[in-house]
């Protein structure tokens, strides 16, 4: 115990005693400049890990998910707007981004121990990973979709009638969020057995009984009414 406490106590003493030989100006300015340099480096590193080039520097991403993305409308389209990996998988706001980055440290673990380093391992894990992303987007109300797509800017009259109708019913009412229906828009889907599409009608709205007389009792009650006594 003593060997742990001793260095800590020494460090606390150094922090507590006023600087003997260093000037106040050196300490404040040095601290300021040091802070700027640290923050700059931190942010640069953060931005670097937030690029598509960084994502596809691992073969797990390049050969599986990035290759699949490259066939989709989010990669190549008539207006030339492209959504890369971080646009959908990393929140844009700083606090959310840091939170996501901390979660992503688990992915470093996965890379080191080769959790998905072959195609087969990747396919075996695909459902788990997909469900994690669906849950994340569901929880933040499809935040990453809404960084570009907004229902306020959506001209329903320019959509196919089918799309306009279902957007009015589910999106505008806030009943469902983007990811509920738009799964697998950028990557291939895992085995979807048991994954209900977003437009599934709730069990309790589907109704349990057929319209019309509900069986013998009802018919009997009508008969009793028609012929009293």
């Amino acid at each position, binding site marked *: 115990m003593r060997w742990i406490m001793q260095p800590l106590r020494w460090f606390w003493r150094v922090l507590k005693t006023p600087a003997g030989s260093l000037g106040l100006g050196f300490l404040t300015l040095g601290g300021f400049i040091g802070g700027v340099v640290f923050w700059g480096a931190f942010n640069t590193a953060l931005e670097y890990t937030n690029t598509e080039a960084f994502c596809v520097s691992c073969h797990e991403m390049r050969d599986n998910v990035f290759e699949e993305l490259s066939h*989709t*409308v989010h990669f190549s389209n008539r207006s030339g707007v492209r959504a890369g990996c971080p646009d959908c998988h990393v929140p844009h706001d700083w606090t959310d981004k840091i939170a996501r980055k901390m979660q992503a440290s688990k992915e470093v673990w996965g890379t080191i121990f080769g959790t998905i380093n072959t195609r087969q391992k990747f396919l075996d894990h695909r459902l788990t990973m997909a469900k994690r992303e669906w849950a994340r987007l569901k929880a933040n109300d499809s935040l990453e979709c809404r960084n570009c797509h907004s229902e306020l800017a959506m001209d329903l009259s320019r959509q*196919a*009638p*089918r799309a306009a*109708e*279902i957007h009015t019913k589910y999106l505008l009412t806030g009943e469902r969020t983007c990811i509920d229906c738009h799964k*697998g*828009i950028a990557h*291939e*889907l*895992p*085995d*979807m057995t048991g994954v209900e*599409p977003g*437009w*599934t*009608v709730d069990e309790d709205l*589907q109704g349990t009984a057929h319209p019309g007389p509900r069986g013998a009792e009802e018919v009997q009650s009508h008969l009793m009414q028609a012929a009293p006594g």
Partner: protein
Amino acid sequence: MRQFRLPLILGACLAGTLVLAQNVPELSGPASDPMEPVPAAPLEQYVTDDVRLMRAYPEQPPIIPHSIEGYQLSVNANRCLSCHKREHSMGAGAPMISITHYMTREGQMLADVSPRRYFCTQCHVPQADTDALVGNSFTDMSQMGAASAGSD
């Protein structure tokens, strides 16, 4: 004369080969340079008006009146069935696939879509408003004076 017979036959064979070789059709197409890049024809736009069209004959698989761009149809996922399957047709407002899709080849009813009907685009296709690649003289049987059953 006898000593020239073999070279003569061989010569005739060679000449015959040369003549026949002229008539071998070009397998690589008529282009002078088969590796030359050729401009691609512009892609046709799908008809996406959601209007169900009349079938040209009773057995025709109905055509798809919407875009299926990017729809996944694989062993893992079937985007078509996620709307057109019986369980989902109510929420999606899509027409349910026909009863025949729940039957085996022998007409035995199944609880779910028959595996032989799984790959929708094998029969159902979207349309583009374009000229037919091959001309045809199809005439609707109702225009050919076919009488309906029981009318005689």
